[in-house]
């Protein structure tokens, strides 16, 4: 899922400074799972913003709402009922959701309450780590299910670099060397011969480098 982290309160206060009636919109999708923008975080942030404003002798009226998701048109419609009563929308969804709200609610400034970081997994409660960089051309079948793009700091495609020491990456002693992990996994699977397949120079045009991407399923279009 998409992992995000709440922005510092001071940064958000600066963003909403011109407004005194806002909607704080959470999302029940990824940001709820990574505890960055769910119902609880909407409540905590709204309280903190109201308190901060009151210490300045100003008021702040907040409509706290948590939508099912912010990346589908149908789920944004419920906001239309009350949106006009508010001056701006502070969204705690991932970057995709925030932008979709901005597209669908054209009269409202839509502000980001979180920094969207990566596609990742829950290693344990409270700890999320990166696994995928959506390069658009998955090679996980040849690397034992471990991604050389996301888990190797240099995104190398054919084995570790000289900085791999004790299974750790040279950039940070707490970061595993992606290729060490791939080696160990293929060994576990008895598929070490897959390492002999040379992965060619990657065509990054399927990744971000090819520009904004689009996917269409004609059979699903109405």
């Amino acid at each position, binding site marked *: 899922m998409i992992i995000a982290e709440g922005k*510092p*309160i*001071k940064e958000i206060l600066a963003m909403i400074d011109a407004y005194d009636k806002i909607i704080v919109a959470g999302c029940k999708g990824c940001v709820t799972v990574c505890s960055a923008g769910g119902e*609880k975080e909407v*409540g*905590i942030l709204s*309280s*903190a*913003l*109201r*308190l*901060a404003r*009151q*210490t*300045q*002798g100003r008021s702040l009226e907040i409509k706290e709402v948590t939508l099912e998701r912010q990346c589908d048109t149908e789920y944004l419609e419920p906001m239309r009922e009350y949106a006009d009563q508010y001056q701006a929308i502070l969204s705690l969804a991932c970057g995709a959701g925030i932008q979709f709200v901005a597209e669908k609610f054209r009269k409202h400034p839509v502000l980001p309450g979180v920094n969207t970081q990566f596609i990742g997994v829950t290693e344990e409660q409270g700890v999320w780590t990166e696994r995928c960089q959506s390069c658009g051309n998955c090679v996980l079948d040849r690397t034992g299910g471990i991604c050389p793009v996301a888990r190797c700091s240099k995104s190398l495609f054919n084995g570790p670099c000289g900085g791999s020491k004790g299974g750790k990456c040279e950039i940070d002693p707490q970061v595993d060397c992606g290729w060490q992990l791939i080696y160990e996994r293929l060994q576990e699977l008895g598929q070490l011969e897959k390492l002999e397949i040379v992965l060619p120079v990657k065509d990054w045009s399927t990744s971000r480098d090819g520009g904004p991407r689009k996917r269409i399923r004609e059979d699903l279009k109405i």
Partner: protein
Amino acid sequence: MNNFEPTIVAFCCHFCAYTAADLAGTMRLQYPPNIRIVRIPCTGKVDIRFLLEAFEKGADGVYVAGCLEGDCHYLKGNFRAKKRVALAKRILEDAGIGGERLEMYNMSAAMGPRFAEVAREVTERIRQLGPSPIKRAKSMAHSAKSKEQRAKSK
């Protein structure tokens, strides 16, 4: 500010802190009447939203009182509370309320005198800090408004 009486909310766990409060009462120990106790089954129930809401509703100080570390009736509730209180303190600091207005304490059910001591300590600390910044801002706005009205009526 000499006659400022702080309003303090104490979230007390049923098994230790609340029982300690009860014992303080049975022992006829004196402690300030400023403490408003909220009994919860375990400090692990404390949600950061409760702590912030207490300040929004006008508390000048808040504390969470639970079992001694290692002795939580529900095993680890007080450890969870400790971390949540730590985060809430940072949020209160960023919001301009001040993290020192929120604290976590541990005590056993037998520690009636400790309950009274904590109540005295917190009341005194908050008295020194003064009213919550949201009240100060309100009263400053109010006195600025009445000054303006007096000037107009002259």
